[in-house]
């Protein structure tokens, strides 16, 4: 059992196991499931994640409100032009993240990870790692368990809800979960996974939740795109051997305290940030009538 990163790391070191293995052991024990059942369910999760990450790449998917859509496809086409600044992996990762966000906004099927608003980040990060590192589905699934372990620690000690902690709690947590998972998939240590997760949270600490019209569309999809990039670069930082000065548990606690200090206007109420810019307000008026 673990509630904190410190405890999870201790278990990893004592048993000489990876984060994913400890998370799986705990799940089997606490929720009394079999290993096979657990793997089956996670395979299903991965299948849905793959579908949502690809669905909007070659066809334009519009949101229920009609406000957003079609951007994943634009990025995918731009990537093929070979004239991108940041390169294929980053552009493709952003496109996949946008794809899931667009599927979500169109009432399509997604896996909340950890929430629906941030659901594009983890699938895109893991699928990008799968392509780059030539991983099997079985290996990617291990990454999902690592991500779940990190997410559990954040949910227990802070929050993963935008209404409670701002977007840092939603897209920040997803990026942290993704970063830690990729580090493990790339062969990094459990410590390095938590360094990466710390970087991802620190990078966007204070990010507010300001969805225009209260709809999970804008800036949500954008933050899924930047969120996956945050996860990828945080993983690279940790894989380079860079260490987080502040331990993950303290970073999580800091993120939570920042969330508590945020006025309600910046926590999903659509009363602050870009949601209440003149354009945001104008769109809101239009949507509500």
């Amino acid at each position, binding site marked *: 059992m673990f*509630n904190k990163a410190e405890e999870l790391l201790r278990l990893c070191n004592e048993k000489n196991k990876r984060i994913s293995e400890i*998370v799986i052991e705990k*799940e089997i024990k*606490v*929720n009394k499931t079999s290993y096979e059942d*657990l793997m089956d*369910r*996670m395979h*299903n*999760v991965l299948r*849905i994640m793959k579908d949502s990450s690809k669905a909007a790449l070659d066809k334009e998917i519009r*949101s*229920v*409100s009609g*406000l957003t859509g079609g951007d994943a496809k634009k990025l995918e086409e731009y990537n093929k032009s070979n004239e991108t600044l940041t390169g294929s992996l980053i552009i493709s990762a952003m496109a996949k993240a946008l794809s899931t966000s667009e*599927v*979500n*906004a*169109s*009432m*399509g*099927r*997604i*896996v*909340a*990870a*950890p*929430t*629906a*608003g941030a*659901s594009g980040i*983890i699938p895109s990060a893991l699928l990008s790692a799968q392509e780059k590192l030539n991983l099997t589905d079985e290996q990617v699934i291990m990454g*999902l*368990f690592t*991500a*779940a*372990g990190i*997410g*559990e620690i954040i*949910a*227990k000690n802070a929050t*993963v*809800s935008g*209404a409670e902690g701002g977007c840092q709690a939603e897209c920040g947590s997803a990026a942290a*979960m993704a970063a830690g998972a990729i580090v493990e998939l790339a062969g990094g240590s459990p410590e390095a996974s938590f360094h990466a997760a710390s970087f991802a949270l620190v990078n966007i600490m204070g990010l507010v939740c300001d969805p225009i*019209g*209260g*709809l*999970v*569309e804008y800036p949500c999809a954008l933050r899924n795109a930047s969120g996956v990039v945050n996860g990828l670069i945080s993983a690279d930082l940790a894989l380079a051997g860079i260490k987080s000065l502040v331990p993950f548990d303290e970073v999580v606690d800091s993120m939570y305290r920042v969330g508590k200090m945020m006025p309600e206007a910046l926590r999903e109420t659509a009363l602050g940030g870009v949601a209440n810019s003149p354009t945001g307000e104008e769109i809101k008026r239009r*949507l*509500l009538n």
Partner: protein
Amino acid sequence: MKDYGVFDVIGPVMIGPSSSHTAGAARIGKIARDILGTDFNRVIFYLHGSFAKTYKGHGTDKALVAGVLGMGPSDENLRNSFEIAQAQGIAYEFIEADLGYQHPNTVKIVFKSKDKKDSYIIGSSIGGGNVLITNINGNKVEFTGDYPTLLIKYYDRKGIISRITSVIANNDINIASMKVTREDNIATMVVETDSVIGEKIINEISEAEEIIYIKGINPMLR
């Protein structure tokens, strides 16, 4: 500290865009159908608070209709629910309303049919796809639908509660929680149990002449 399973964090599998505005709405609709029955040809949804403000953009309207048609929150047909309702000859209407002091994501669902009196439930979507049902046909209740739930209305006489609970115990079912409220001499009991409620229990409890109404609802898969 609440313990989390991996699929609480990487999950649920759901239909977007928002667990409280879509998944929660579909669940309330589905619970309405489970409680009020399938004998209806018109449904009116009174939307309160944030439900009233953003129901179109979030697809809450489609999710609610899908729920009363019997679809679960991860059914990909959710977005086609209006067409499906039409094909089944079921009319629906959305009315923005002030339901008083309620959670911001609250809906009152009224079922109408030709030869029956209107019936309704009130429920709130309280976040992460979780819901709370607070009223059934004017009876105040409080349950989440996460557990198998027994709803019982009865004339309050001495010994009736222990008669009900002993039927449950004799069927080898553990009670997770139990709430009783009373108005005049009519009581409403909500019992949440740890295992699925079958016909047998309901029949056995119905044998008591005090029972006015009994309904068992089992949770839907998430």
